[in-house]
């Protein structure tokens, strides 16, 4: 049986390190990938992820059981990432986005269309995937956060709103904008 986050938090606070280990395992992959895509730098993502986990452990007493642990730990990560942006003066737009390589976007759209109307999770080609990451890197951090929380955490609007401390309406509008922008990149009309 999978224990809820709050139970693991309570046990950690009671001195059970194994409980925090379980929390770590639960969040390691999705949180790391969230940070990695958000900062666009694998090395920096390692530092931020590590610091997020350490800080989460040390500040665990400040987390209010009954709220949302996932939102709480993501807020820590986002704040650390913001500090990283400030330190570097700007978001390190991914080297993918800085690529000067150009391609026929219309052909790309056609290629995607040929893949048929299948599930949105259908595998995309390597080149298409690269362009998606390129499109993501062009989004503002605010829009990117919303997309990444949905993609890597499977968060619904309400959870994203809780995580980012913004109204659901703002989540919806940011999601709409971000999805639309990604769509634009792919259909060749940015």
């Amino acid at each position, binding site marked *: 049986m999978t224990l809820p986050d709050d139970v693991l938090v309570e046990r950690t*606070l009671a001195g059970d390190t194994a409980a*925090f280990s379980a929390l770590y395992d639960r969040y390691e992959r999705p949180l790391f990938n969230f940070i990695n895509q958000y900062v666009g730098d694998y090395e920096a993502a390692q530092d931020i992820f590590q610091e997020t986990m350490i800080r989460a452990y040390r500040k665990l007493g400040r987390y209010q059981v009954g709220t949302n642990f996932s939102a709480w730990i993501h807020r820590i990560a986002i704040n650390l990432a*913001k500090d990283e942006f400030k330190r570097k003066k700007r978001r390190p737009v991914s080297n993918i986005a800085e690529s000067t390589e150009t391609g026929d976007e219309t052909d790309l759209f056609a290629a995607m269309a040929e893949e048929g109307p299948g*599930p949105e999770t*259908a595998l995309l080609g390597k080149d298409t995937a690269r362009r*998606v990451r390129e499109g993501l890197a062009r989004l503002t951090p605010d829009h990117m956060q919303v997309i990444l929380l949905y993609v890597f955490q499977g968060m619904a609007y309400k959870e994203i709103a809780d995580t980012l401390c913004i109204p659901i309406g703002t989540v919806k509008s940011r999601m709409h904008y971000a999805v639309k922008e990604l769509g634009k990149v792919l259909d060749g009309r940015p």
Partner: protein
Amino acid sequence: MRCEHVQDRALECILAGEELPVGLRPHLESCQECTAEVARLRLGVRAAKSLRQSAVAPPPGMKKAVFDAIASAPAGEPATRRASWREAVGAACHWLVVRPLPVAAAAFVLVAVTVVGVATNGSKLRKEAWEIHFSVAQSRAVPDCERLEREEWIQKQAAFLNAVNDAKLQLQIVAVDGDLATVRAAARGVRARRLVESFRAIENAAPEGDRRLASEVRYYLEEIANLQP
């Protein structure tokens, strides 16, 4: 049915991997703009979901590094359950006496920001909240500050609380790890002088029980303001 509603509803369904509701079809059949927009949203969601393909594994040894760092933490961590904000103010008062001023000052900014967040939930203090939001938001270089300004109050309030949360987290860190320079930077960051002014307004508007608290916090904020170079 409005286009905006159709597009919002369509996006929700696409994100959830569901079929579009039958009720949207008449509109979509008659509205080219919405049809095109929904097609683009489908493409965008598909693109977004494809990012999962590029998920990477964290480097090996990461967990060990984290747990080694945790094991080397001072005894007693993680911290015990957080005290209420009233208790926190009491503890902070004690801190000022027994701790070096800069560290205590940072703690008081933390408490003050928290109290402002609580106290400004009421509509009466909207103006003060908005002022503080701006001073905090500017210090955090919130990129869409101007856009937020045009939005409804509820949005402003949420943005303000968001900025306060950011500031709180930053100050929590500073209060624990900070040196004098960091504390000064943090004090500048939350525009302590502006907070002092806002607390004067809060003192006037606060119920009797909280007025003394606001007054105390203001006093310490003035101390913080004096720290600024």
